[in-house]
């Protein structure tokens, strides 16, 4: 029998715990009871407690079953995940909240990630499953979260700080609007494998794929040439054509971007901007990356006003000050030279010394 097709996802209504079914759309307010614990109160007076738990996202089926055990024991068999890959236990019986938290802690699950904390790092596949990464994803995330762990379960920061990671310029982590973005980058042009190009690639499509026009067809050779001067290692040609690999142990690594945000609270959404052009891949702990991220987080935490996101703080003090306070060297790479470059230049003599 052929499988049914096109029936769509399970209806979410069937996944909602009774307290939500009853109070759907009727929530009146919430309280952040303590880090990791939210309390939502309905017009009806009903209460719902949410316990947020950090997750590595890459879960074994056995681990998922353990989570189910917990949800069954404390939450009537319901749970959810968040848009940042955390777990949320939905507790309708207030008496179950503390036992659940104790049980979680006992098993080593971190409770936190709400409010002015560092929550989970949205991330991607890395060396675990993708063909274009310039760094690993899960390993870097683990190293950074271990290093920032004190900020996950406590409110010690001026505001939200959302960290994301993408292992290549495709940016599957959609890191481009994060308070801190960790982005894998290549630094060497593709190493053209002419046999593969000839066998597998549509030359015109590969040529068209290059944002800087670095690729030229090489008709006699039925292949391509890359103008290495013009290549900025985006990897889009490799996406189109397996004959153009860029991965390289020395060339590859991580760049750090700061100051993006998504919410419209106070100030409009904005993109993250380059803070550190390159840090080496240094598995398993990426110490250069963890140090850099911590330095940025803590410099911000020390200087920002209350409720001031990373980007709001930097725009207030100026990027010149940001580089000064974080002690990050300013390089040629920081100066934009792509299509919107002139919009980023300083067209005023008003700046700080």
């Amino acid at each position, binding site marked *: 029998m052929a499988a049914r097709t096109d029936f769509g996802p399970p209806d979410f209504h069937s996944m909602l715990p009774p307290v939500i079914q009853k109070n759907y*759309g009727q929530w009146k307010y919430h309280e952040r009871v303590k880090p990791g614990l939210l309390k939502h109160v309905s017009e009806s007076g009903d209460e719902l407690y949410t316990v947020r738990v950090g997750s590595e996202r890459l*879960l074994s089926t056995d681990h998922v079953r353990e989570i189910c055990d917990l*949800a069954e024991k404390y939450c009537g068999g319901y749970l959810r995940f968040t848009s940042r890959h955390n777990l949320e236990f939905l507790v309708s019986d207030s008496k179950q909240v503390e036992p659940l938290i104790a049980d979680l802690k006992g098993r080593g699950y971190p409770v936190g990630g709400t409010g002015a904390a560092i929550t989970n790092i949205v991330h991607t596949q890395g*060396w675990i*499953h993708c063909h274009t990464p310039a760094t690993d994803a899960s390993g870097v995330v*683990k190293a950074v979260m271990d290093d920032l762990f004190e900020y996950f379960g406590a409110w010690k920061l001026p505001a939200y700080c959302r960290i994301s990671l993408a292992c290549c310029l495709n940016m599957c982590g959609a890191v481009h609007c994060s308070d801190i973005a960790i982005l894998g980058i290549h630094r060497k042009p593709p190493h053209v494998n002419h046999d593969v190009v000839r066998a597998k690639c549509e030359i015109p499509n590969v040529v068209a*794929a290059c944002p800087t026009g670095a690729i030229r067809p090489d008709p006699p050779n039925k292949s391509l040439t890359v103008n290495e001067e013009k290549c900025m290692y985006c990897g889009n040609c490799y996406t189109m054509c397996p004959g153009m690999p860029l991965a390289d142990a020395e060339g590859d690594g991580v760049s750090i971007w700061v100051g993006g945000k998504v919410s419209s609270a106070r100030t409009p959404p904005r993109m993250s901007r380059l803070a550190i052009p390159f840090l080496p891949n240094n598995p398993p702990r990426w110490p250069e990356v963890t140090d850099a991220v911590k330095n940025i987080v803590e410099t911000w935490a020390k200087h920002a006003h209350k409720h001031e996101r990373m980007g709001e703080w930097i725009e207030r003090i100026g990027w010149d000050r940001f580089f000064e306070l974080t002690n990050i060297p300013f390089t040629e790479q920081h100066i934009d030279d792509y299509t919107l470059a002139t919009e980023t230049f300083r067209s005023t003599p008003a700046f700080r010394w």
Partner: protein
Amino acid sequence: MSDTPLLDELENGPWPSFVTDMKEAAEKKPAARDLMRQLELSYKERVGHWKHGGIVGVKGYGGGVIGRYSDQPAEFPNVAEFHTFRVNQPSGWFYTTKVLRQLCDVWDKHGSGLTNFHGATGDIILLGAPTSELQPTFDELSSIGFDLGGSGSDLRTPSACVGPARCEYACIDTLDICNDITRTYQEQLHRPQFPYKFKIKVSGCPNDCVAAIARSDLSIIGTWKSHIRIDAEAVKQYAGSSLDIQTEVVDLCPTHCMKYDAVAKTLAIDDAECNRCMHCINLMPKALRPGVERGATLLVGAKAPIVQGALLSWVLVPFMKMEPPYTELKALIEKIFDWWDENAKMRERLGELIKREGMGDFLRAVGLKPVPQMIMRPRANPYFFWRDGEVK
């Protein structure tokens, strides 16, 4: 001695370790074991070990499975083929433990025993199965009520914030909209026929908890028109709390439309000037609530940097009522699909196409009038067009 010493190090530290999960799976699954060993090699060599691409799938569908082959199949035979499923999540990522256990059983039977809850687009990711197991896996998923998500040049799995299920700020029924759209556009989701991917995300208010504005070609964000509801009693309570209403709320209001009388402990908002940024409501959720005339702002164009630089979505429709069956929304979505489909080059996202063709062309194609809300500021360059008939 362990043959994954580098990975083992990542079992230390307080944050949950994916290595521990891999080891758990590896106990039962040779594929998980080989995945670890290959990853260890990557950690040693500092490069990945997957071959480029690979098109695989299940009957009747054009997307939903990402093909993946090891570049060292002899060394790691159990991940020689290691394809992943993108399984469409229930709106808002709510689950009963029952369906989660069913999913685990299916995946233990056919795959690596490793998952992602969830992928960055929102799907459940079932990580790694050989080609021969693809169809059987899908058949069983289908029998427990799970369908595939998108991949390739198609509609991608839409996603939504928790919305009215647990958030008092939700101005629209994010979960229902997400679910309804996903079901309506099954054909577009499952059979790549677009110029490139198309993403839709739904947030219930301008806090935008699914980051719709940053990563969806169509971003649906709840908002309101009428005045912010003020509970005067609750304001007085906040006045007595550790919150400094003047400096933390009023002074940070971007439009300077709030006034706080510290003596009377009353708050006044000039709603005509409020831009609904949410800041005050976020800080005083017991005292302030979004207005009652609700709907959504629709924005278009967000995407990651490839090819011409990242884009954030921009306002297309300042306000649209959002009630099932979402007729107006769907009519617009279909006009957008049509125009994009007809005009885009291969691998050109909606935002890039609008950038290339101009908002004017796009607006005329989808039948919308230009309004100042679409822009932050008008053009600074004098290079504008006049259409047929506008000039004698």
